[in-house]
């Protein structure tokens, strides 16, 4: 299955997000080897150069590291992985508040609604 990508945002960014997501959700564990550029390109149905760019960017952020001959691996730096998780979480929260604001809720009202929802779930 080709990866589900948006039409209006740069593809390499979405590939980065997708790989980050796969790390967070446990598809890849710390220290795991990533598939080759070509395999990822075929799986995602995207241009290999775009995958290359996404991986280079992930390397620059430190999330992924390259070993000269054996390929690319996920970092084993737990601290960094936790921070990435937190970053993703704050992005989701930010998006959510934006949506709630556009529905006309003030932030305090949104908070109250969340508390209510949490109680119901429990």
């Amino acid at each position, binding site marked *: 299955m080709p990866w589900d990508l948006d039409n209006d945002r740069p593809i390499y960014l979405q590939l980065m997000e997708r790989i980050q997501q796969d790390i967070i959700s446990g598809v890849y564990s710390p220290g795991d080897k990533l598939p080759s550029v*070509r395999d990822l390109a075929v799986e995602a149905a995207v241009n290999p150069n775009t995958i290359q760019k996404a991986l280079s960017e992930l390397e620059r952020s430190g999330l992924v590291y390259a070993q000269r001959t054996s390929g690319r691996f996920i970092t084993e730096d737990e601290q960094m992985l936790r921070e990435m998780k937190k970053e993703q979480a704050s992005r989701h929260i930010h998006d959510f508040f934006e949506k709630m604001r556009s529905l006309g809720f003030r932030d305090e009202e949104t908070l109250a609604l969340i508390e209510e929802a949490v109680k119901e779930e429990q």
Partner: protein
Amino acid sequence: MKPILECKGLSKKYNAAYYALANLNLSLEPGQIVGLLGPNGSGKTTLIKLINDLLIPTEGEVLVDGMRPGVETKKIVSYLPERTYLDPAMKIRDVISYFSDFYDDFSADKAGRMMQDLEINVNERMRALSKGTKEKVQLALVMSRDARLYILDEPIGGVDPAARDYILRTILTNYREDATILLSTHLITDIENILDRVLFLRQGQVVLNATVDEIRTDKGKSVDALFREVFRC
């Protein structure tokens, strides 16, 4: 890096008043998949035919790996024309051996495997095939060469969506990192994600030459959406 394709002041006039290409300038680095996009009559096929030595420029020149189109360039260019040129009486297996004789860089094994994947019986004659199957055969042949430049004129126009996915996958798996693919199509959404770069052609000139992610970053929209805007009727 030396460009694999260069057009300098390239013009093609079919009659006194009409320029199909008008002073087109273009230089493509190797190692990219490039989409050649433009409305009907914008000059896509004319450009492709000039690269393949099927037309002679009125002015200017085309260079493939630094050479004028001819025997030497045909050895390194694998070309899928708009329409088939294969003998309808031939069996697919014979076409495969015909290609083996013709091109040093052709892999009969690869072609055979692709026919199998596409569930095409190589004992069938060309004339017995549906339009879509014929297109698949032709594309499989063209992609079974180990060329430096692939030129595909509307490769996915006539085939069903499942075969389209297979073809795009074939392009991705078979393509060597230093090879270049130039493909024309109207089905932009289907191929947008596999392209490095797009060229918009309008009235015989390149009006846009940018990478897909540049377009998305700068304009915040897909190539397909940009095309619809630029070429709005």
